[in-house]
C-alpha cells in the first residue's frame, strides 16, 4: 500500500459504521425486557389455563378433585421423586414471576421518568382500559397471589376455620364465605383485563402482528383468553357460593 492509500483510508469516513451508543447490543434494549415479559407472560398463560382446567374438576366432586391434586404430585414417579415434576413446574413459574415482575418494574420506572411533567389535560383516543391498567392489574394479581398461596398452597389457611389438608374442603369452606368469593372475583377481573391486553401485547412484542389480519387475530385471542380463563376460574367460587358445589 502506498502512502497516499494510507491517507485515503484515514480520511474516508464511510468505511466504518459509526455507533453513537457505545457497546449497544440487542440484549440491552428495552425491547429485550419486553421480550422477556412476553415469554414469561406466555408461561403464565399456559399455567392459568391448565390450573383452571384442574379447578373445573371440582364439578366432578371431592374425589376427582383431590385425585387430580394427588396425581400432580405423583406424575413422573419413580423417575422423579415425589412432587418432582411439580417442583420443576414451580421453579419455572417462580423464575418467570421474577423475570416478569422485574421487567415490569424497570419498564414502569422508565416510563415514569420519560414523562416527568404531566399534562394538565390528557385524553385517550382508542386505547383500551386494559392496556392502560396493566401495571395496577399486575400488582393486584401479585397481591392476590400472595394471599392465594397462603390460602391454598403454602399456608393452607382456612378462613372458615375448618379442615386444611383436604384441598377440596379447604376450597369449599373458603368460597362459602361471600367476602372470600368477592376477593377472588375481583382478582379474576384484574386477570381478565391483564390477559385481554397481555395476549395481544405479547404477540406484538414477539413481532407476530405485522399485518392488519394478524393484529385482529391477536386482539381476538386476547378477548377469548380473558373470557375463558377468568370465566372458567370464576365458575367454581360462584358455584360454591350458590350451593351447586358442596362438601
Amino acid at each position: 500500500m502506498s502512502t497516499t492509500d494510507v491517507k485515503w483510508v484515514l480520511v474516508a469516513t464511510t468505511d466504518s459504521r459509526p455507533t453513537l451508543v457505545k457497546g449497544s447490543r440487542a440484549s440491552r434494549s428495552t425491547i429485550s425486557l419486553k421480550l422477556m415479559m412476553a415469554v414469561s407472560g406466555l408461561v403464565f398463560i399456559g399455567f392459568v389455563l391448565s390450573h383452571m382446567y384442574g379447578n373445573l374438576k371440582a364439578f366432578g366432586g371431592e374425589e376427582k378433585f383431590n385425585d387430580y391434586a394427588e396425581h400432580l404430585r405423583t406424575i413422573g414417579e419413580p423417575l422423579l421423586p415425589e412432587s418432582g415434576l411439580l417442583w420443576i413446574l414451580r421453579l419455572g413459574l417462580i423464575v418467570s414471576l421474577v423475570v416478569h415482575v422485574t421487567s415490569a418494574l424497570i419498564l414502569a420506572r422508565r416510563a415514569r421518568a420519560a414523562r416527568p411533567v404531566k399534562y394538565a389535560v390528557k385524553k385517550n383516543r382508542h386505547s383500551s382500559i386494559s392496556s392502560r391498567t396493566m401495571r395496577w392489574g399486575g400488582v393486584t394479581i401479585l397481591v392476590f397471589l400472595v394471599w392465594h398461596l397462603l390460602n391454598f398452597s403454602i399456608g393452607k389457611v382456612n378462613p372458615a376455620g375448618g379442615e386444611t389438608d383436604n384441598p377440596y374442603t379447604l376450597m369449599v369452606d373458603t368460597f362459602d364465605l361471600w367476602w372470600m368469593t368477592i376477593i377472588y372475583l375481583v382478582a379474576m377481573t384484574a386477570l381478565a383485563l391483564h390477559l385481554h391486553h397481555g395476549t395481544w401485547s405479547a404477540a406484538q412484542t414477539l413481532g407476530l402482528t405485522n399485518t392488519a389480519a394478524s393484529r385482529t387475530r391477536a386482539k381476538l385471542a386476547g378477548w377469548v383468553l380473558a373470557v375463558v380463563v377468568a370465566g372458567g376460574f370464576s365458575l367454581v367460587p360462584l358455584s360454591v357460593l350458590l350451593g351447586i358445589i358442596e362438601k
Partner: protein
Amino acid sequence: MNLTLNIWRQAHQDAAGAMHRYHVTDISEDMSFLEMLDVLNEDLNVKGEDPVAFDHDCREGICGSCDLMIDGQAHGPEVTTTCQLHMRSFTDGQEITIEPWRANAFPVIKDLIVDRSAFDRIIQAGGYVSANTGSAPEANSVPAPRDKAMRAFNVATCIGCGACVAACPNGSASLFLGAKITHLGELPQGQPERYTRVVDMVAQHDHEGFGGCTNIGECSSACPKEIPLDVISQLNADLRTALRQGR
C-alpha cells in the same frame, strides 16, 4: 366565534412555567388553529405582551414542525397536524387547553416549543442506507416487489412530528422508530444494514430517555400520518432477529 384559551407559558428551558388564560374573539371557522393563534399573537403584540411561541413552518401538514397538545390530544381532536386543524372542529364559547409535548427527551425551550433533536440522533444512529454519492447502481437493476415498496412508502410518510411520543402514556418513540425500521427494512437496499440498524437505533432511543412500548396504541391513533401499529411489531421482530444473530 369566541374562545377561551389556557396556554402553557414558560420563558425558557430552565424557567418555571404555568398555564395562562386568554380570550380570542371573532374567530372564523375557516381559520386554521395556528391562524387562530396568529390572531391571539397580533393582539398580544398590540397590548405589549410577549406573543406565544409555537413551532410551525409549512402549514400544510408535511414538515412536522407544528406540535401542540390541544385539550389533551396531540394535534387536537382530528387525525391531522395542528396546522391542518381548522376551527370548524371547535364550538363557540369553548375553552381550549394548549400545552407543549411532554417528554423528558423533548425538553421545553419556550412556551409551546420543545426540542425534538432526539429524533435526529435516532436517525444518526442508523436510520439510513449507506450509499455514497456516485456509487449507486442503475436504479432498475434491483426490482422491489410492489407490495413491499407500497408498505415502505406508507410508513416512510412519517413527518417526525413527535405526536406519537406526546400521546404515548409511556413517552415511547416506538412508532417513529418502527416507521423508519419498516421503511428501510422493506426495501432491498435496506437489507445489508437491517439488523445493525435496528440495534443501533433502539439503543439510541433508549439512551435518549424515551419510555418502552407496552403496546397501548395511543401513538398510532394520534399519528397525523396514520402510521399503523404493525411497524412496532416489525421493529420487535427485527430486534428479535438481531438478538438471535447475537448482535
